[in-house]
């Protein structure tokens, strides 16, 4: 199990966006993304709907239809994908805090905050264009 970390939806969202970026102007269907990322098609469909609604991707209909990036991969940071799916990150309160508790586990909160900050820095500093290369290699093999 994942002890703590990004949700399945976020991980699927980031992987899907890398594949859509790699597909470029050819576009790519949900079915093919699920096949490449080896993830649940139902879950992926929901995530892709959110990404589309939030304006990161758009779709064309029809037998040859598929998904495309709405901006270039260089203009999309992973934090944009994260926030499209999960909402704005509360940078002042990164870690789970049992807010209604009268007991504050400062020791635990500090390590969780430190690890959260590491994740956040990665998401804020990594562009989609930096991770699409591996997806391009997989697409070329298809």
């Amino acid at each position, binding site marked *: 199990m*994942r002890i703590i970390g*990004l949700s399945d939806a976020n991980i699927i969202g980031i992987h899907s966006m890398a594949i859509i970026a790699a597909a470029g102007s050819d576009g790519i269907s949900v079915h093919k993304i699920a096949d490449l990322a080896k*993830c649940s098609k139902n879950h992926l469909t929901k995530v892709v709907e959110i990404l589309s609604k939030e304006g990161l991707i758009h779709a064309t209909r029809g037998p040859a239809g598929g998904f495309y990036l709405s901006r270039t991969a260089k203009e999309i940071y992973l934090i944009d994908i994260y926030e499209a799916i999960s909402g704005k990150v509360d940078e002042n*309160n990164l870690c789970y805090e049992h807010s209604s508790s*009268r*007991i504050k586990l400062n*020791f635990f909160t500090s390590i969780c905050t430190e690890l959260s900050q590491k*994740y956040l820095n990665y998401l804020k500093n990594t562009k989609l264009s930096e991770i699409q290369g591996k997806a391009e290699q997989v697409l070329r093999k298809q």
Partner: protein
Amino acid sequence: MTKILAISEANAISFHAMALIAISEISINTNDIAEISGSSKHHTAKVLQRLVKKGLLGSTRGPSGGFYLKKSAKEIFLIEILEALEGEIKVNDCPIDNPICPFGSCLMGGICTEIGANLLSYLKSHTLSDLITNIDSNQNIFKRIIDI
């Protein structure tokens, strides 16, 4: 507003409950723990039952009954508290749980594995005693119980 790292409500309750029981000088029961930790009584009862079943807590019955640690706080590693609820914890290499990465190597550069491993290492090397180190026992945590 969202949290980058989220732990489940049940795990949050178990860490808070274990810490409360460790610092309490008086017998403390489900109602007290639920009230102080701001959790639902029903959910707290289920978590405590699990911690008893896994041998981390003992309980005494009766009007002055409550929960106690089966070992000293220094002997209970934080990983034991997490595993009591979740089973054995392993850090997966793949964030989407694929046995073999479809991209050859992790698209996200292994950041998920790295952070999972960091947390696991922390939980394995720190005890309940560390968790309660910075808790100010004079911060009126037990005020209501003592007043009663």
